C-alpha cells in the first residue's frame, strides 16, 4: 500500500514574538511567536530546504516526480517545481507539477502523488509544500501566519506510514482569498468564515471520515490538521472529542504560526516524529473544502534516516531584533536606495543562467580524475595539476565546510546589512567564495563550521536570482548527537 517513505521539514531560523508585533501597533499582546522567513528566502527556497531534509539517505535517481504546492510561488508564470527538481538534481524525466490556489494545495499534491504511485506512473514522488503568506500589517494574519515548508517522499515500498484512505470534498465560499492583484490575504467576517467555513467543514469532514472507516476518536493516536489560529485548534479538537494534550499536541501555532498550505503536512510530520509503529494518524486540511486521510504507521517510523524534522527546526531559533526588521525584510515600506550602482546592471542573462544550471543551481563543480582536486566553479584545466578535460562532476551542496576568511560589508545594498561574505574551504578540497546568511555578525570567526543553503541573491527586472550561500551549521540531524 502506498504511503510515506521519508519526511523533511523546514522552519526558518527567525521568530518574531507576537508581543513585539503588538508593541509596534499598540495592540493587545498575544502569546507565542511566529516563524519569519529570512530576507533571502521564499517558498521555493524553503521547499528546497525541506526537500533536502527529506532526501537524506534517499537515492535521488529513484525520485520520479516533484510536486510543489504553494499559494505564494515566486512566479505567476514559470514553474517552481522544475527549478526545485533541478536544484535537487532529480532525473530529468521526473514529472514536475505546481499546485496552488488554496490552502488545500499541499494535501492536493499529496493525493495526486498517492494516485500516481498507486497507478504505477512513478515509483516515488516528492511532495513539497511551502508558504509565506502576508497578513495585512496590524491585522490578525500578520500575528498568526508563519513561514515554513514540508516535504514528503511518497512511494509504494518501505513506507513508514501507509495512507489507507484519502477523501476530498470541496466547499465554495468566499472566506479567505487573495485576488491576482492582492499582496495581503483578505478574509470575510471572522464569525461567518469560521461558522460556515473552516470550523464547520473541518469538523464534518473529519467526523464523516471517522464514521466511514469505523474509527472512534480514541482510535486515533494523532490528529494532524491546519487551523488559522490556536482558538480554532482547541475548538475543532473539542468538537471532535480529541484530547488536546495527547492527540493534537499542537507545537506549531505557539512557535511557528499558520504555515498555509504546509501547515497540515508539518503537523503530520510532527505527529510522525512522535509515533510508534502500528498507530493511526488522522490528517485533515481545510481550504475551499477539506481533504482527510487515514494513515497507519509501520515499524519503520521509529528508524527513519537522520533528518531535522519539525522539532529540531523549532528548537533552532533566533528572535528578530524588532518588528521594523520584519517590515524591512518583507519590504513593507520603501527605503532610501543605497548610493551604489543600480541593480539593473546585474540583470542575469537568461542564456547564461540556463547554461549554468548544472553547476550553479546544484552547486556542482568538478573533481580532477588525475589528481583528485575538487574545484568550483567547474574547470576544464585543473587548478592543481593542469590536466585538461579529465574531470568528473562533484556536488558541494552537502559537503561540510569551514570559514577560511570573511568580511562584513556595510556598503552593499541589502535588506540585511551587512552582507557577510566568506571564503569557505570544503572538507576534502575545494574553495568557494559565497555570502553567509542567517548569521549573527558577532558569531562569525575563521574556522567556524558552515553548511550550504539555497537562497535568493536578489530580484531584478522580474527575475529572482537564486544561488547558494553558506550558513552557520544550524542543527545536527537527530541521531547524531555526540
Amino acid at each position, binding site marked *: 500500500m502506498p504511503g510515506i517513505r521519508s519526511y523533511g521539514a523546514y522552519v526558518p531560523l527567525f521568530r518574531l514574538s507576537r508581543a513585539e508585533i503588538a508593541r509596534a501597533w499598540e495592540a493587545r499582546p498575544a502569546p507565542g511567536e511566529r516563524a519569519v522567513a529570512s530576507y533571502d528566502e521564499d517558498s521555493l527556497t524553503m521547499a528546497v530546504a525541506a526537500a533536502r531534509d527529506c532526501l537524506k539517505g534517499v537515492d535521488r535517481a529513484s525520485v520520479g516526480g516533484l510536486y510543489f504546492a504553494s499559494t505564494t510561488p515566486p512566479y505567476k508564470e514559470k514553474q517552481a517545481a522544475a527549478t526545485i527538481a533541478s536544484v535537487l538534481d532529480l532525473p530529468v524525466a521526473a514529472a514536475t507539477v505546481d499546485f496552488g490556489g488554496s490552502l488545500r494545495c499541499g494535501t492536493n499534491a499529496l493525493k495526486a502523488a498517492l494516485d500516481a504511485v498507486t497507478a504505477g506512473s512513478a515509483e516515488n514522488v516528492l511532495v513539497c509544500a511551502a508558504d509565506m503568506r502576508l497578513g495585512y500589517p496590524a491585522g490578525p494574519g500578520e500575528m498568526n501566519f508563519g513561514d515554513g515548508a514540508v516535504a514528503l517522499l511518497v512511494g509504494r515500498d518501505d513506507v513508514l506510514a501507509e495512507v489507507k484512505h484519502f477523501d476530498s470534498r470541496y466547499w465554495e465560499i468566499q472566506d479567505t482569498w487573495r485576488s491576482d492583484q492582492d499582496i495581503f490575504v483578505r478574509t470575510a467576517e471572522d464569525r461567518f468564515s469560521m461558522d460556515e467555513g473552516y470550523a464547520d467543514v473541518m469538523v464534518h469532514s473529519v467526523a464523516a471520515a471517522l464514521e466511514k472507516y469505523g474509527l472512534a476518536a480514541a482510535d486515533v493516536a494523532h490528529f494532524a490538521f491546519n487551523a488559522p489560529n490556536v482558538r480554532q485548534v482547541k475548538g475543532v479538537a473539542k468538537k471532535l472529542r480529541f484530547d488536546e494534550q495527547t492527540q493534537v499536541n499542537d507545537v506549531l501555532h505557539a512557535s511557528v504560526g499558520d504555515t498555509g498550505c504546509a501547515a497540515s503536512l508539518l503537523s503530520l510530520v510532527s505527529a510522525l516524529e512522535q509515533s510508534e509503529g502500528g498507530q493511526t494518524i488522522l490528517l485533515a486540511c481545510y481550504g475551499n473544502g477539506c481533504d482527510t486521510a487515514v494513515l497507519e504507521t509501520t515499524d519503520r517510523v521509529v528508524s527513519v534516516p537522520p533528518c531535522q524534522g519539525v522539532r529540531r527546526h523549532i528548537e533552532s531559533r533566533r528572535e528578530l531584533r524588532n518588528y521594523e526588521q520584519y517590515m524591512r525584510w518583507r519590504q513593507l515600506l520603501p527605503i532610501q536606495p543605497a548610493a551604489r550602482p543600480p541593480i539593473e546592471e546585474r540583470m542575469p542573462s537568461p542564456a547564461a543562467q540556463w547554461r549554468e544550471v548544472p553547476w550553479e543551481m546544484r552547486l556542482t563543480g568538478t573533481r580532477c580524475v588525475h589528481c583528485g582536486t575538487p574545484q568550483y566553479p567547474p574547470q576544464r584545466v585543473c587548478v*592543481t595539476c593542469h590536466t585538461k578535460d579529465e574531470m568528473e562532476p562533484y556536488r558541494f551542496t552537502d559537503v561540510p565546510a569551514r570559514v*577560511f576568511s570573511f*568580511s562584513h560589508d*556595510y*556598503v552593499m545594498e541589502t535588506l540585511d546589512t551587512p*552582507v557577510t561574505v566568506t571564503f569557505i574551504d570544503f572538507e576534502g578540497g575545494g574553495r568557494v*567564495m559565497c555570502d553567509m546568511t542567517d548569521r549573527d555578525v558577532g558569531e562569525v570567526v575563521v574556522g567556524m563550521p558552515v553548511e550550504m543553503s539555497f537562497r535568493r541573491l536578489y530580484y531584478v527586472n522580474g527575475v529572482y536570482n537564486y544561488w547558494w550561500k553558506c550558513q552557520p551549521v544550524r542543527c545536527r540531524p537527530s541521531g547524531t548527537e555526540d
Partner: protein
Amino acid sequence: MESIKDRVAIVGMGCVKFGENWGQSLDDMIVDAAYEAFEDAGIGPEDIQAAWWGTVFAGHTGQILATPLKLAYIPVTHVENACATGSEAIRNACYAVAAGMYDVVLAVGAEKLKDFGYSGLPQTRPVATWSYRLTTQTPAAGFAMMATGYFAKYGLEYDVGKNLLGQIAVKNHHNGSLNPKAHFQREITLEKAVNAPMIAWPLGLFDCCGVSDGAAAAIITRADLATKFRPDPIYIKAAQICQGPREGWLSQTYDLAHVEETWRGGQAAYAEAGVKDPRKEISIAEVHDCFSITELTIMEDLQFSPRGRVSEDIEAGTFALEGELPVNTDGGLKCFGHPIGATGLRMLYEVYKQLQEKAGPRQVKNPRLGLTHNQGGEPGAATVSVIIAGNELG
C-alpha cells in the same frame, strides 16, 4: 627573453589635480595632463607617432584620446587591464618603442568616476566569462577578507591588526597633505583612523581609498634619444605584468595573507632590472594602497619586509617619508583616490619627479631607483604590474 632595461626613457610627464573635478570634463583632464607632458618634454602633439590610452570606464577605442588632443591620424590603442590599466598603457608604449617601431609615443590614462553619481565603481559584469550569481559584496569586502586572512595567519588580535592598518593610512595622509595634486590633503590621527565607520569589516573608512576623477600622461622615447629632449630623463629598468589564474579563489593552497601575483611580478621585475636586494636598492616605491591591507601585504610580497614581519617596519617608520624606504610619498591611492586608468601613470609621475629631485617638500634624499606597483582584481585573482625606473643608465 630580452629585457626592457635601459632601452626606453620617459622625457615628459603630466598629471592633473585628482579629486571631485565637478567642473572638468574627461576631455579637460586629458588635455591638461597631456599638455603638461608635452611642455615638460619640449614637444607638441604633432611629434607623437603613436599613443596608448588606458581607461576602464571612459569609453571604447582610441578615439576618446585622439579627439580632445586632435592626434593626427596616428595609431591609438585602447588598453584595459582593470586597476592596472594605467601601467598597462605605459608598458605597451615602452615595448613599441623598444621594438623600434616608434621613436616618440604617448601614454595617457584617465577616468571620470564622479559623473556616475555614486560612491564606488560601476558594476559592469562580464557577460560571457563569469557567473551572474555568486556573491554580492563590494570590492572592499574582497580585500577585507585578506585582512581577516592575514590577522588569522599571524595571530594578530583585531586591535593590533587594526592599529597597523591605521598607521599606513596616517602615513599616506601625511604625505598627501604635502601634495597640492592630491584629492585629500589632510592629516589624520591614528585614533581617527581606527575608530572610523566600518566599510567592510575589519576595514574602516580610512582603510579605503576614495573615488576621484583624474588623468596623467607620459612621453616615452628611445633611451639613446632621451637626452636630446632633456638632461634628466628617467630610464625604464623593468616593466612586468603578472596575471594570476584565479588559483586563490579555487584552491585551498592560497593563504589569503599575501598576493601571489605581487610576489611573482616583483620577482620578475627585480630579475629584469638586475635588482638583488630590493629593500636596499629601491629608493622609493609607489604601491597600490587601494585598501590599507593591500599596502601592508605588498611590503612583504615586494620583499621590503620579511614574510609575516611587516609590523616591525610599520612600527619603525621604515616606509615613512624620512624612513629607510619611503612608500607612497605622494599620498598614494589613499589621498589620490583611484580613477582606474590614471592611477598607474599617476604613480609613475611621482617616481619621475622624485628621481629628478623635483618633488618639493616630499623629496627623498638621493633616489636612484623608483618602483610602481599597480594592482587589478582582488586577492586570489589579481592582475599586477611592477615597473622600475632609474635616473641613470646601467
